[in-house]
């Protein structure tokens, strides 16, 4: 399977996005911004359409649109503090409507759109690979350098601000990174499933992790396992890679939840003292 160049590219693209998307997912979940990934992917579709019509590389068009939308959502978040989901809904509607209208201007667009809607990781271009690589490197640097202020920011924005964390600047940088990662993940699983790559690994990791760092590392592990096994199953079974990856990640989540439930029932039945990771000696350092 790995003898084929297109599969090598697919695994490389999957590995790169699998390193950063689940980390971002953990922060998005804890900041209650899960829907942001879906919204930005829809807006980036408008960027793809605009790029195609203007003769710009569609991937770059999608990238620019996602980052601009992320910044706009951050701005609107300040205006709708009580209803955090409102800016996301506004942008999702606006993005999708723009994409539909722009699509109608170009007949060839509709055909190439399916690859953006459902992903085409096995046909990742050099430009897309560079964009994914760039987003991954920037994302990892961001999450490593700012891990401490990000932890405080995620815990509580007010407390973070009073502790000296530059809340506004960090939130803007986080939004830009979210836009970049969503746009980079589009070729892997497509617009419709991009949030699967961010949210599903994080959702499972947050259920089983003992601490913050283990949640982040766990999410990356689950994400990479899902991507690699999804690509393999897709190659063997000749199924669409994006959907296969999303389904496998969903299966991981359901299995994890079921095992957790079984463990809880077994513990209750045997009245065992708690032996979960929380009792383990040694503390993670952020």
């Amino acid at each position, binding site marked *: 399977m790995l003898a084929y160049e297109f599969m090598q590219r697919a695994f490389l693209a999957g590995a790169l996005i699998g390193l950063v998307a689940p980390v971002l997912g953990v922060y998005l979940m*804890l900041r209650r911004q899960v829907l942001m990934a879906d919204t930005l992917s829809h807006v980036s579709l408008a960027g793809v359409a605009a790029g195609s019509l203007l003769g710009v590389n569609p991937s770059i068009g999608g990238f620019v649109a996602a980052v601009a939308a992320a910044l706009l959502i951050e701005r609107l978040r300040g205006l709708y503090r009580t209803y955090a989901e409102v800016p996301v809904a506004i942008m999702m509607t606006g993005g999708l409507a723009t994409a539909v209208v722009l699509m109608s201007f170009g007949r060839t667009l509709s055909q190439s759109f399916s690859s953006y809607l459902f992903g085409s990781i096995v046909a990742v271009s050099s430009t897309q690979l560079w964009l994914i690589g760039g987003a991954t490197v920037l994302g990892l640097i961001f999450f490593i350098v700012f891990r401490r202020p990000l932890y405080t920011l995620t*815990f509580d924005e*007010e407390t973070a*601000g009073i502790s000296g964390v530059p809340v506004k600047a960090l939130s803007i940088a986080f939004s830009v990174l979210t836009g970049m990662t969503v746009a980079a993940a589009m070729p892997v699983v497509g617009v419709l499933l991009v949030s699967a790559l961010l949210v599903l690994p994080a959702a499972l990791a*947050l259920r089983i*992790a003992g601490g913050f760092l283990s949640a982040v590392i766990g999410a990356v592990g689950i994400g990479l396992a899902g991507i690699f096994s999804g690509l393999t199953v897709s190659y063997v079974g000749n199924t669409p890679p994006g959907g296969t990856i999303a389904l496998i990640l969903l299966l991981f989540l359901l299995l994890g939840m079921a095992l957790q439930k079984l463990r809880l029932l077994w513990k209750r039945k045997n009245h065992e003292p708690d032996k979960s990771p929380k009792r383990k000696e040694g503390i993670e350092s952020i």
Partner: protein
Amino acid sequence: MILSSMRDVVFGYADEPVVHQVSLDVHKGEFLGITGPNGTAKTTVLKLLLGLLKPWSGTVELNKEAFGGGKPVIGYVPQHAASFNGGFPSRVIELVRSGCHSRVGLFGRFGLEEERLVRDSLEQVGMWELRRRRIGELSGGQKQRVCIARALVQCPDVLILDEPTTGMDVRSRTELYRLMRHQVRHHGVTVVMVTHGLEEAGRYLDRVVTLERLEAEHPQIAPDMIPSELQPGLSGDRWEME
């Protein structure tokens, strides 16, 4: 010495003011209580004092001379501290350690001094034994204690507590007041606390400011401040485990 001063502050969230002509001085090294009925914008006044909100009119000034010309370290315990996201993936000690982040910077290592501060803060609020628990497994009162420990670990010049006794039993509340009294007396910390429990807290406070319901043309703050009935011999440097 005046540490922070609000003068004729007016502020609102929409088009109507919720804070009207409030003037308030916070003195260095005092234990100040802010009280008043529901809806009198006590939390908003705290946020104005902290600079989290900008007043429509009036001034909020911080006397930097009170801190030797530098920037004060402020420890803050928000009102919603007890309503954490139950799934926040952190243990007690991990969260309290995050209070040291401003001391160690982006890449600094936690040294013995920071570890001592963390242990000391957790012991002061009686949570050292539960340091390896996940935040989501704690009761509301225990979460409040963890937030207080996180504020204490910063060695603050000023502690701002917004209804910190929410979810605490009587004994824990008394221990909290004693601990704050100790911080004021022995460490020179200035403590500003929003509270409804004046009957319990009154004897530990230096001064109480009462906010009144908003009425047009009248300043929202009560003209008289209630003197405390401080009792000698209060120590309260440790919070006993329940």
